[in-house]
């Protein structure tokens, strides 16, 4: 892979993960929902769009919309029983929900159309890339990058508008406990459910973009580990700051892909190095927690 192509790949990954971290930031950073199952939305988005486009031969736009709707609905549905839980219980419930989604796709191969070596643990390949025939192999990543950046921009604008509105004020007041917003007549439960649905919608969008870029998805790409990479982005970038979430995604993605180059400079086997990058991300979270509690970009204060 040439350097330019690699950079395009890296930028696409940054864009997709930035959408994920923006949506987790809405849930965790702004609303205080410890969502440990964010990968569920990513997974659902990827599978929904794949099924719509590959099995039902729908256009890519329908795939995107379907992915967002299904993931958003899932967010809404899992918050029905969990909306009154406290932070730590919420974390466990969402972690479990994400595993349920992953294990569903691991065991139910018919959902992707069935066939030998299709679905289940084999994963599913040959996911069509939108407008692929119009571009050469060299220029296509740049087109896809543009698609991702448009989606990222839309996500940023929508979430940023929401967080600066009266809606944003209410969800920020929920972070420190329910009783105050309740005493002011705010339906805390309804707000949490809305936030889960909106975050889920954009998580689904990211999943869809990811599936159609790689052309292959399988359940083992959606392990809980993915959720924690997104958490690292929010924590390092700066929680409750939308720009911070994007910066965090960029930094963590650079870290994550650095092993490709470090192998030339560090006398360690590449496989070991690849495992070490997870250690590096862990260390980064710890360092951020100790020295920069609020992340690289602090929460913005609204001045009146």
């Amino acid at each position, binding site marked *: 892979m040439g350097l330019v192509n690699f950079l395009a790949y890296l930028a696409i990954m940054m864009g997709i993960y930035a959408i994920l971290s923006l949506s987790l930031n809405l849930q965790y950073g702004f609303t205080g929902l410890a969502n440990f199952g964010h990968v569920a939305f990513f997974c659902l988005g990827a599978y929904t769009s794949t099924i719509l486009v590959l099995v039902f031969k729908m256009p890519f736009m329908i795939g995107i919309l379907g992915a967002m709707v299904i993931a958003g609905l899932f967010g809404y549905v899992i918050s029905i029983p969990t909306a009154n839980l406290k932070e730590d219980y919420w974390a466990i419930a969402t972690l479990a929900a994400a595993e349920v989604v992953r294990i569903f796709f691991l065991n139910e191969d018919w959902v992707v159309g069935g066939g030998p070596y299709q679905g289940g643990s084999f994963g599913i390949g040959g996911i069509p890339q939108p407008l692929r025939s119009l571009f050469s192999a060299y220029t296509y990543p740049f087109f896809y990058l543009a698609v991702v950046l448009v989606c990222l921009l839309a996500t940023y604008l929508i979430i940023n508008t929401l967080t600066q509105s009266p809606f944003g004020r209410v969800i920020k007041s929920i972070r420190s406990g329910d009783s*105050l917003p309740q005493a002011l007549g705010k339906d805390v439960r309804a707000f949490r459910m809305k936030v889960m649905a909106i975050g889920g919608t954009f998580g689904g969008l990211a999943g869809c973009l990811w599936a159609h870029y790689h052309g292959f998805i399988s359940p083992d790409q959606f392990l809980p580990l993915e959720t924690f990479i997104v958490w690292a982005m929010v924590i390092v970038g700066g929680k409750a700051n939308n720009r911070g979430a994007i910066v965090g995604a960029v930094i963590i993605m650079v870290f994550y892909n650095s092993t490709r180059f470090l192998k030339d400079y560090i006398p360690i086997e590449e496989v070991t190095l690849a495992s070490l990058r997870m250690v590096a991300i862990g260390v980064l979270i710890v360092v951020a927690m100790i020295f920069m509690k609020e992340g690289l970009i602090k929460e913005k*204060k609204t001045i009146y």
Partner: protein
Amino acid sequence: MDSTLEDGVILKIENVYKNFGGILALNGVSFTVQSNSITGLIGPNGSGKSTLFNVISGFYRKDSGEIYFQGEKIEGLNPCSIAMLGIGRTFQISEVPEKTTVMENLLLAPKRQCGEGVCNVFLNRRRIKREHERHLDNALDILELIQLTDLKNEYAENLSGGQKKLLSLGRILMSEPQLLLLDEPTAGVNPTLVKDLMVAIRNLRDQKGITILLVEHNMRVISEICDRVIVLDFGEKIAEGTPEEIQSSKEVLEAYLSGSSKRGLFNEDS
């Protein structure tokens, strides 16, 4: 409308019981609060004042008894719905959300804001802006009242205890309640400001027509602003009357003096 609604009664508590694992926090409390009045709720520590507030505002579920607000029974409602009915409350320990400025605290409070709906945020921008300007004007007036104008852009968590008390009063006023439950509004507030606060609370009744029920330990505040005083002890109402009547009531004195605190009821400080 219920027949239980006598003229001018905004809140009626009838035989309310609440126990916590065998400890009777409220033991059949009954009283009424007149519309457009300031009613004081006093009693030694642990007499059930805050529990009663929590029951009225829906944070605790009562074991039995009835509560009527404006003639309607409030039964099985959650705190949010009760707040929407028009019962506002403050907490004994003032809570402030983290990373929220004084001004944001005030702007959070108004009820039924258009911009709290997700779709409205994108589709009704002009109406949100109009509402925002109105709330901003209101908030500036209230800041003046609670004397926090200079701190409007400060994070609320950095305020002193007394200032937080004032902020929670200001915040609940922004939500325009009809009945206001104030849990020790002057605790921790500096004495000169307490005088202003008393005037302000009286103005709330006279100018805005808000009915106020307040828990207070500062007897000077009670005797200066309250129309009526209700005394609780061990979860029971032991006396009710004008501040003067209460001050001369033998039962009330006994309730205070028999407690662990030998401090007199009517000391100047509190």
